[in-house]
């Protein structure tokens, strides 16, 4: 009879939407993770794998013991840094997808320390500084293009990613190449490596660099006037300008800070990742760190502390995913593992995506509306 009784489905959808939007963030994340896990389970079930055994393998492989936990953390370290790159800029109102290229450049700069000798600790610090500066400089390109020419950062950072890719390809193949090992660059000497933190795992002291940078970014954004300006400019640029904030300054600052983060990720994956301590031709250990970082940023709600948690989760997914391939009587091939991980990450990123992109929310609403469309005029008649 009544308007709403006619379309219970629509009502349900709206109800879900309303319930979701009012949830506590932690609860929301847990709920999203559950949804993602269920979708993943359904996919595995459809393709003939036992989801429960597979998830057991995932859990064991991710957090089953100190070795597993250390491996998960290790996998998350560079992602913390690239996620921060994205989040800093997003907080500053920009959609910076340039972390990918900045990682490459940062890694290449870090490798350069192989060409000179310094005392142990100092050598490491110099390498970190090299990578940070290289990342920042590479990030300045899109920043300057935006400030002087108004080029949208999405376009310029994509372009810079490609340039970085081929530039580093070239450097790896012809300049930094190890003459005896053509498939990789010269190795970073022992004096410039992050020592391994947990023996027998990948976890090195680079984890402290990542955590320190995350805390630094948190403090900067929420406890200094400079960070306040970045956030204000990101949220309401008009009001920020009214408040005497130089948007140009905040843009430049967020790009540079972001570049530092990505550069450090490059350092962490070369100076702090056994066994190679060099860039492999084709950059297979650097590839996608920037893009995965965006997913981590989304899952972590673009908050440095959330990113730390999200990176641990993401690292766990990756580390556990390796184990899913051979664990027990139910091996799941990597392709399937990746599909499942994709489902989980997507589900967890959606709430933040919806918040971040009002346009996305609008299209989401349009979808809900379409699904629950009703015609009062007809019903009234």
């Amino acid at each position: 009879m009544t308007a709403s009784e006619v379309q219970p489905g629509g009502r349900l959808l709206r109800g879900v939407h309303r319930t979701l939007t009012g949830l506590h963030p932690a609860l929301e994340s847990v709920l999203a993770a559950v949804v993602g896990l269920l979708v993943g389970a359904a996919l595995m079930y459809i393709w003939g794998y036992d989801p429960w055994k597979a998830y057991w393998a995932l859990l064991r492989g991710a957090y089953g013991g100190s070795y597993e936990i250390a491996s998960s953390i290790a996998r998350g370290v560079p992602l913390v840094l690239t996620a921060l790159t994205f989040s800093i800029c997003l907080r500053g109102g920009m959609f910076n997808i340039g972390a990918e290229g900045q990682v490459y450049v940062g890694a290449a700069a870090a490798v350069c320390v192989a060409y000179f000798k310094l005392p142990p600790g100092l050598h490491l610090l110099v390498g970190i500084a090299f990578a940070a500066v290289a990342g920042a400089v590479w990030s300045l390109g899109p920043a300057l293009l935006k400030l002087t020419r108004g080029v949208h950062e999405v376009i310029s950072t994509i372009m810079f990613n490609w340039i970085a890719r081929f530039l580093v390809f070239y450097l790896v193949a012809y300049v930094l190449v190890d003459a005896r090992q053509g498939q990789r660059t010269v190795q970073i000497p022992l004096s410039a490596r992050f020592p391994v933190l947990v023996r027998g795992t990948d976890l090195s002291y680079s984890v402290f660099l990542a955590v320190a940078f995350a805390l630094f970014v948190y403090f900067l954004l929420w406890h200094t006037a400079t960070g306040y300006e970045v956030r204000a400019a990101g949220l309401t640029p008009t009001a920020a300008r009214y408040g005497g904030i130089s948007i140009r300054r905040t843009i430049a600052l967020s790009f540079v800070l972001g570049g530092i983060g990505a550069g450090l990720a490059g350092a962490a994956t070369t100076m702090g990742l056994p066994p190679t301590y060099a860039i492999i031709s084709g950059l297979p250990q650097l590839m996608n760190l920037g893009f995965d970082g965006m997913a981590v940023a989304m899952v972590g709600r673009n908050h440095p502390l959330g990113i730390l948690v999200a990176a641990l989760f993401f690292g766990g997914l990756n580390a556990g995913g390796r184990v899913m391939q051979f664990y027990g009587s139910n091996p799941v091939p990597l392709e399937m593992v990746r599909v499942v991980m994709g489902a989980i990450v997507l589900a967890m990123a959606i709430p933040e995506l919806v918040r971040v992109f009002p346009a996305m929310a609008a299209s989401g609403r349009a979808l809900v509306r379409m699904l629950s469309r009703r015609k009062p005029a007809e019903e009234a008649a």
Partner: protein
Amino acid sequence: MRKWLGLALVVALVAAPAMAQALKGKVAVVLDVGGRGDLSFNDMGFKGTDQAAHDFGLEMVEVQSATAADYLPNLRNLARTGQYDLIICVGFLLGDALAQAAAEFPQQKFAIIDAVVDAPNVMSIVFRENEMSALVGALGAMAAAHYGYPNVGVVLGIEIPVLYHFEAGYRFGIDWGNKKAAETLGTGPVGLLYTYTGSFSDIALGKAATEAMLAQGAVGVYNVAGPLGIGDLEAITEFHRNQGTRSGPPYYFGVDANQDWLGNGQHGLASGMKRVDVGCYSAVEAVVKGTFTGGITSLGLAEGGVGISKFVDLLEFIDFGISAGALKPEDREATIANWAVNRGTVPAWIWRAVDELEAGILAGTIVVPTADTVDEMQAVRARYTLGAP
């Protein structure tokens, strides 16, 4: 009674080490980021291990790597379980990770294809790719001479020592073919066009490099970059389409697997086969038979580890392609026919000459040079300049 007891003791004593040696029944294959589906290197590694596991009644697991950062963890994860008789690393890129893992897990047996890891528990399986590349090079050079093409080409991947084997052998083979052609036809030498694309994955790079070579009159292009061969073949196929021909030069020379059947066998003249499957199989076999030892196992023409493609392998690999879904079963006969037609475009004396070269290498009367370092490679290049100033 005592006698029985004594016997039992003896049995136990003898059996104890034997029990320790007993098979756990599992082998693992670890692939690099290239992963499965290349119908070549990685798939052959899988196929050989799978076959061995089947023949010896073992269970096999396959572990792929999403990124280079996964290599070492994957090896560690497997070795930690202590459940694997053998862990095979398919591919050169896993070398660093294996060196570390082998040291951490001295009780675990490993094998690696294409790299040398100096550890007592690692069987390093390498191939003498220079030998089969020499055969392909000779074939290409003579075909070019026959058809009056100025060049032969090769598209390579990343400049790593393994690829130097190919280049060195190919250069030698071309030079040998040039001499043979001069004897037979009185033609001048053909040159070599070669490109290191720096990639084992970017198919477009293979296509672009091949197009450039075809434009400079290459009679064929040898693919030494795995998946890039798809791009190479695409360029060659398009060239034929524009030229209005269905067979004959320019040719595609496949690599690792028998790739002659690719593109329904129209342009694949021959492949420089590197039997990764044979390598993996023999590693598993060694473990099962108790003959496993660390150190280098070099496989060449003599061991059946490398070779130039023949009709028999073609059938085997056509079936491989069909089972992977890359070739439609109904195209099987047509593919074989196309291949035969294409082979027929090369005169018999050339095939005989290739056989002659093969026999010489097998007999040890002909020694194909190789290179493992930049310097050695430079030396080979200097010796066989092949048209380059």
